[in-house]
């Protein structure tokens, strides 16, 4: 029996070595792609991302990934978005005014309150809704300057606090978007990846 494969979208702006290594530790094969068809067909799709919002959107547009990602979320095919990847699923970001996001999550990313350090760098305690499927309480590792503060209808979220409450992660069906880095969040983060992988695989057609 072949091992399941996690497919990582390589936007060219993200450092994906840590994400790849984490899925490897979860017992998966890992492939990276810039091909929208490969991404569309993949069982487990991961949108990582660090860097700026406009560069991320430009990169996805150039690779022809925008419709593929919207359609994937629509049919609830497994999708994990990490850090900037989560913000790209949103509608816009104050980081890049005028640039449209994917619009999968109806929320706009804004900057942290000026009273706190930015980027938020380090471990913060997250508090999930009781109804969350994947998210559990724990410490998660963040490295971000922008974040959502609202949870749109139809989504479940986990909140954390940094100069006010913000959305640490959000989930709906088999879509999981984390503002933090599960791949850098120790055993707790790996357990989260395991839950997403298991639920995604169990629902996948043979």
């Amino acid at each position, binding site marked *: 029996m072949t091992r399941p494969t996690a497919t990582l979208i390589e936007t060219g*702006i993200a*450092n994906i*070595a*840590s994400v790849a*290594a*984490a899925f*490897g*530790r979860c017992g998966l094969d890992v492939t990276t792609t810039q091909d929208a068809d490969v991404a569309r067909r993949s069982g487990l799709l991961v949108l990582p991302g*660090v*860097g*700026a919002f406009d560069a991320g959107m430009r990169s996805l547009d150039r690779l022809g990934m925008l419709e593929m990602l919207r359609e994937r979320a629509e049919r609830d095919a497994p999708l994990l978005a990490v850090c*900037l990847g989560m913000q790209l699923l949103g509608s816009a970001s104050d980081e890049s005014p005028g640039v449209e996001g994917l619009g999968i999550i109806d929320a706009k990313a804004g900057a942290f309150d*000026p009273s*706190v*350090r*930015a*980027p*938020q*760098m*380090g*471990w*913060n*305690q997250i508090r999930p809704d009781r109804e969350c499927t994947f998210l559990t309480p724990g*410490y998660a*590792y*963040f*490295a*971000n*300057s922008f974040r959502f503060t609202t949870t749109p209808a139809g989504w479940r979220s986990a909140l954390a*606090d*940094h100069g006010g409450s913000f959305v640490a992660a959000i989930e709906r069906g088999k879509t999981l978007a984390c503002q933090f*880095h599960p*791949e*850098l*969040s*120790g*055993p707790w*983060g*790996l357990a989260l990846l395991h839950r997403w992988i298991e639920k995604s695989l169990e629902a996948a057609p043979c």
Partner: protein
Amino acid sequence: MLTRRLIPCLDVRDGRVVKGVRFAGLRDAGDPVEQATRYERAGADELVMLDVSATPDGRGTALETVRALRAVLSIPLTVGGGVRKIDDALALLRAGADKVGINTAAVDDPETIRTLSTQVGAQCVVLAIDAARSAEDDRWVVVTRSGTNRTPLDAVEWARRGESLGAGEILLTSWDRDGTHSGYDLELLDAVCSSVRIPVIASGGASSAAHMAEAIEAGADAVLAASIFHDNKTTVCEIKNQLAACGVEVRR
């Protein structure tokens, strides 16, 4: 709320962990992967690996070490020490570093910070500043080339400039305190922490949890230490328990 980070530092030369005082007198202190694994299990929040190799061969070995560390680590890894140009930084990130520390290269050409930050994001760019108390006046100057070169740059101003150029974090090492076990330079920390918005990692001089609690009180977001974890004098877990007892919010 965001917890304060405890960051063990591995000074690595030719694939081995070493430790010296003020960047000199290096002695062997073990295998990096073995030590890193032990630190993560004991609750390290992050790791810094400083490549103190002196040769191009050593740099190649450092990339190998980064790959080996990445394969086992589920916490963030910052790598610095050998970054002379943008390509060095990109190679480290591709090998599995989550952040890269730049020091001398940034002093020689500050635009390096901006270029790197634009390419990989501010979150990946750590400006490493080695600061020494000025003999002439009441301030700190930046030292480079592993402490062999004193620049006229004011350390606090340089931190501010680094932030405006796109650094996402500052690793602030007191050249006077490094390896001395006499505690962090708290005045230096206070001066830098109150001048920038990006997080600051305190480095140089720690030998106890009390020193770390003082640094956090002075404004540090994270504390870095190397030698106190060598030779099993204490563990990351013990230090974190002591920090918590001092009222510091830590991940446990």
